[in-house]
């Protein structure tokens, strides 16, 4: 069972580690969006935890990213790949 997902598919309560920034369905503004995500702390290796979501189509989402809270739309979150923490992931770290 794969526990590598796009952050846009995550549900409230999911925790994981960012494994890749970029890709997704980025258009021509690829590198711009990638850089903006990086500048807000969405960088490979960062711990993320989805804590809240909006009322319309569960969007936007609020995340703990390491020790800060950031809001973004699922559309942008599609450009972040995360590895969900398995049941034993925390123990293994």
């Amino acid at each position, binding site marked *: 069972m794969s526990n590598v997902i796009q952050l846009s598919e995550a549900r409230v309560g999911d925790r994981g580690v960012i494994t890749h920034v970029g890709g997704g369905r980025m258009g021509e503004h690829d*590198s711009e969006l990638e850089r903006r995500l*990086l500048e807000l702390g969405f960088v*490979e290796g960062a711990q993320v935890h989805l*804590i809240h979501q909006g009322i319309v189509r569960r969007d936007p989402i*609020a995340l703990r990213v390491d020790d*800060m809270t950031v809001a*973004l739309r699922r559309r*942008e979150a599609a450009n972040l790949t995360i590895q969900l923490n398995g049941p034993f992931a925390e123990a293994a770290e």
Partner: protein
Amino acid sequence: MDIAVRPARLALVGNPNSGKTALFNALTGAHQKVANYAGVTVERKEGLVRSASGRTLSVLDLPGTYSLRARSPDEAVTRDAVLGRLAGESPPDVVVCVADATNLRLVLRLVLELKAVGRPMVLALNMYDIAQRQGLRIDLDRLRGALGVPIVTTVATRKRGIADLLAEVETVALAGTVLPQGEGAWHEPDANEIRAAHRDAERIMRTCVRPPERPDTLTGKIDTLLLHPVAGLLILLGLLFVMFQAVFAWAAPAMDGIDAGFALFGGVVAGFMPDGLLESLIVDGMIAGVGSVIIFLPQIVILFAFIILLEDFGYMARAAFLMDRIMGGAGLHGRAFIPLLSSFACAIPGIMAARTIDSRQDRLTTIMVAPLMTCSARIPVYTLIIAAFIPNETVWGFASLQGLVMFGLYAAGIVSALTVSFVIRRVFWRGQVEPFMMELPAYKLPDAKSVLINLWLRAKIFLMRAGKIILPLMILVWLASTFPYPPAGATGQPIEYSLAGMIGRALEPIFAPIGFNWQMVIALVPGMAAREVAVAALGTVYAVSDAETAMSGLAAVLSAQWSLATGLAFLAWYVFAPQCVPTLAVVKRETNSWKWMTIMIVYMFGLAYLGAFVTYRVALALGGGNVGG
């Protein structure tokens, strides 16, 4: 240049929510000068501070940013100011990077980026008391070594560390007399360079900062409630309700006071001056004109008090989060929420608040629809027409019919703003979606002094605008409604023979299909200066003296002279018409283009005409055409 002979310039740079403005307020107190940067419409805040050694330093508060790679006009100013590229602005002698000590991760990368620019620099670890309370350990010496910049700890709200900061700035400024010219080694980093800088910052974090023993859990707990999809929205609506109550109910006594004050002042001046042209210019044109704008000061102060408090508390980012998808359906960005909210008091601060929106398209959409929100200047017009034509009765057992109509007018403004932005999004900027991403800062108790300083600043800006823009406009309107004089033996009101009267008469055929008579059209001409001026102008045309105070008299005249259909058409006209030259002037300045101002004029007058036409025809068909009925 020697800093002994001119004030050293320091520029504050930092992430949003780092307490940069609080530090700026702590440094400069109320001695602040607000202007615009040359050529752009970004607010430039500067103040002076005297150091312990007696030197005067000038402090520039630059817009908050995560990176020198600018996206919004605000951030471009920060970049250009730091790089010394800003036209008409000398580069800062010292860059002070302000960091939230409890949230260092992102700012460390900014520090590394700023270092690459090569200007003398000091890092201020602000909110240091909160860091200590959380048990966050920062090895300052090691951090100094790792970053290679002097570090000072500050608590802006308690004025702690200010003297240290100034002393450090002076040392650095004196040592750095040979400035590296130009832009140093800075260039716009690509994604991999940002990653590398993050890794460096991360390494520094690990070696110099021990995670807090008692991390802030309160913010998370409050968010459980405030960001809740249902409860959070209900709380937001509740807050808005309280805010509107405050803006309209609490401001009323102060507004009455200002109104009476200006009337008294005008009366006193009129008593001292000989009757004639000069008296008319000063009393009717200048005093009454400026008074009709300053009367909105209490509402604007109350509105801004709420906005500043919610912003400082950290709530505004949450409001944008809650509203993003809801407004997104109409093609508006979550950040448009605050500008549109401000527009309920007055479109001018609303349009100016749109500066915080990164993307030009989202910003333009917000600016274009902001004047559709029901600003407080429409209230006198609505009140007058409602009093004249809507019976004061109760419907459904509890609701006042007049109140319902007022509510309907507000709703019409909101619905039309959402519709227009939807159309703009679909027609002009199809498919382009600007990302919504923003930090949700930790909640903080607002600092009373900082709030008061910011509030005073807003009030000052509003009053200065009343002086600089509104006063000349009022004089212009007075000229148009006074000259030329009525011919000898004229029977009508003098305004009928003036330029405004001629314009009104000339435009009358255009307005006949929507049920407006020539008196109304004449009133619309001076009414371009500000919406509520139309009330006074109607009073002039119908020769009801002192129309603003004798509102009921004017309402009686109108209900005898207009049909219900005409009254309703006039209301519909006022929902849409851009009857406010100051707003148009601000749109021109903020968009830096005549084009957008023209588009606004055309589309709003178009909607106004259409709205009034439909209203008039429907009301006629339903039997509302009887005059005096």
